[in-house]
């Protein structure tokens, strides 16, 4: 498994994966840099607790960046194997197909997790720079940085599934685009739609529910995708 992942890390070289891993969180925080740069005074008047208000502003764009990142990552990682149909080469090695699939999933989950860590660091950095009056709300900072990640796991599992088994790469791109649109209009979506979950909204106003749902349904979709991948003939 370790060697499989080393191979996958080698394959994503020069494909912009690391660049995107950094770009996502930078983009999300940069939007607030612009926001606070332009109208800091106004924004500070909006709330009693400036730190929390700042975190909420940040979190508006986190789900969007996550879902977009997932769509791009999954279709990139599948395209690396699809380009010269390297699946046949890979699967005719003495490896199990489950390992092949698990390795791809793990690589992407790692990259997105790194993105979340970076998001926390950048958020913290710019927050300190803004020098709010209140103390740093550490727990809230962690929540806003990592809850969306766990809540987005079902989207990752679903997109990876679609990207690896589709003969036509238009399919995952289309579902990816719809995913981004859904994530953008999360407040209008019913609670059961997985694209709503990274926004941490639900009718009970309890973000933890989205995290637990994300982990549970994420596992389920992952297993379904893996079994389907294993069952199919290799292109």
């Amino acid at each position, binding site marked *: 498994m370790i060697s499989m992942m080393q*191979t996958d890390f080698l394959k994503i070289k020069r494909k912009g994966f690391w660049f995107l891993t950094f770009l996502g969180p930078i983009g999300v925080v940069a939007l607030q840099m612009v926001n606070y740069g332009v109208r800091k005074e106004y924004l500070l008047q909006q709330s009693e607790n400036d730190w929390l208000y700042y975190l909420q502003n940040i979190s508006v764009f986190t789900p969007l960046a996550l879902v977009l990142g997932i769509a791009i990552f999954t279709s990139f990682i599948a395209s690396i194997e699809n380009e010269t149909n390297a699946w046949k080469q890979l699967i*005719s090695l*003495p490896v199990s197909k489950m390992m092949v699939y698990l390795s791809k999933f793990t690589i992407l989950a790692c990259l997105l997790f790194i993105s979340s860590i970076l998001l926390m660091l950048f958020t913290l950095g710019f927050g300190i720079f803004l020098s709010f009056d209140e103390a740093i709300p550490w727990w809230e900072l962690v929540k806003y940085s990592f809850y969306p990640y766990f809540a987005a796991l079902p989207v990752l599992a679903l997109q990876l599934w679609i990207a690896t088994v589709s003969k036509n790469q238009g399919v995952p791109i289309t579902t990816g685009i719809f995913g981004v649109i859904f994530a953008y209009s999360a407040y209008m979506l019913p609670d059961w739609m997985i694209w709503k979950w990274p926004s941490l909204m639900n009718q009970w106003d309890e973000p933890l529910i989205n995290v637990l749902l994300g982990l549970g349904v994420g596992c389920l979709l992952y297993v379904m995708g893996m079994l389907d991948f294993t069952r199919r003939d290799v292109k």
Partner: protein
Amino acid sequence: MEYIVETSNLSKRFGKDLAVEGLNMKISKGEIYGFLGPNGAGKTTTIRMLLGLMKPTSGRIRIFGQDIKQQRKNILAKVGSLVENPSYYPHLTAYENLEALRKIIGVPKQRIYEVLEIVRLTEVADKKVKGFSLGMKQRLGIAMSLLNQPQLLILDEPTNGLDPSGIIEIRELIKRLPEEFGMTVLISSHLLTEIDQMATTVGIVTKGKMIFQDSIETMRTLAGHAISLKVSQAEQAWRLLLANGMKVEHESGLIMLHESSNEMVAEAVRLLVQANLSIYRVEEEKRSLEDIFLSMTREDSAV
């Protein structure tokens, strides 16, 4: 007799069509097995099943005496393959491409340099594969297939799309493998001449069915090349050879000799020379693969 590859009643169905039907393939150790058949005959489909890439609709596959369904990983550890077009990662260098496989296979790094040397790509090891010519990509594909020092090498139309010098090079390479490395080789092609120049055993498949499987010599006899002779006086030459009990025909100024053993041709030439006839040309009339298929399927139904 223990076979390296043995399939029994192997079939694969796509929708309504049977791409492979009741195939019984037998490959002994140390052979170069030529898997011959026109496009769409089911060669690639068969090879995909041998490699566990596709599940057979019915039938069994044993490689090294083990069932592929139960022992897939053990078997594949000793098999090298190149299926259809070579697979590679264009954004990586030749070395990195091999390294990506090596990490999974777990052979020493030294092996990368060895296989690069075998296919003569050492000089371009650190160049991205994106810029390689088709022949270089094909050779890289072969290098990949050799990386795990396989006991069985499966090459699906490895000379497809190569220029003549590339074809010769790969042919020479493949011929060396059984002796030098003790490998058994399965090589598919839709070209009779190609198989003719490499294989020791031949399996001919058409429309998913194996219609012939035997040594290359037996196939050559069956393929029955005719020899055509161009001589100064065709009519006279024809009578002379007929009078000596040979199976000859006389058509449009050419003498066609239907038994093409070396002795028979020598005898015919000797007779003509002794009769003071000038011989301008002695040529082998190659029969096309289609002709051979036709005659084989005819014989099938005749039996």
